């Protein structure tokens, strides 16, 4: 997310809206945004309902055994079609922004 914020201008120039989603409440996400200086939207999916639709639920991995989303990134074009995705197999390893921007440049 830090690397997305650092490249936010590049994403915007490519016509891309970066949007983050987690199970955190809007208040917690707001604190995170303020602490880290994130300026893109962070959406709140407290019941992991949207994570379930994307088959990303990591059962019992949250605080107090709650369900959370596993890390994942999707690039979606204006027709609502997935054009690129990254399902990391190690949560310490994340997609690099350069890789995403390269695909983003090819979107019409």
């Amino acid at each position: 997310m830090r690397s997305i914020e650092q490249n936010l201008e590049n994403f915007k120039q490519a016509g891309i809206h970066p949007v983050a989603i987690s199970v955190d409440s809007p208040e917690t996400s707001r604190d995170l945004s303020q602490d880290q200086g994130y300026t893109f939207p962070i959406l709140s999916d407290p019941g992991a309902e949207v994570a379930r639709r994307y088959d990303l639920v990591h059962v019992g991995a949250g605080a107090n055994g709650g369900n959370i989303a596993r890390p994942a990134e999707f690039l979606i074009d204006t027709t609502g079609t997935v054009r690129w995705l990254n399902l990391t197999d190690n949560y310490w390893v994340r997609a690099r922004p350069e890789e995403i921007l390269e695909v983003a440049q090819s979107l019409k």
Partner: protein
Amino acid sequence: MNVRRINWPLWVGFLLTLAAFMTYVSVFVYFPVTRDFPWANLLIFAVAAVFLIMGLRRGFASDRPRPTRSKVVASIVSVLSVAVFGFFIFVFFIGGRSLPASDRAPQVGERAPEFSLPDTTGKQVSLTHLLSTPVNGLAPKGVLLIFYRGYW
């Protein structure tokens, strides 16, 4: 306190081991090169190991003023250091990989499921809406959706 009595390589090794463990999350995770594979941390662990081996040899040397205590301390500190290293390997290489398979996640060419969720101000934001919201005053080309584990 006589300098000869302090097993300094042992303690330097132990402190470096703790530093190698803690600096991943506090420092190196912020740089993709040292985050995606913990080179920097493994290097610090390796340097720590050199000091610990020196410390063990010193602890078991025959000229120690209190030989039994020296051996016990060197042994305990070394075992603790190995445990810290083992825990680091576990957290990164095994803990990090315990993720669901997500076999039914939408693939390239498939439709992204619609959603409508509140943002940090409580305003509802939907995928459809984002896909028609201008970026820098121009027609958008897409949305980058980032699911993350949460801040707790």
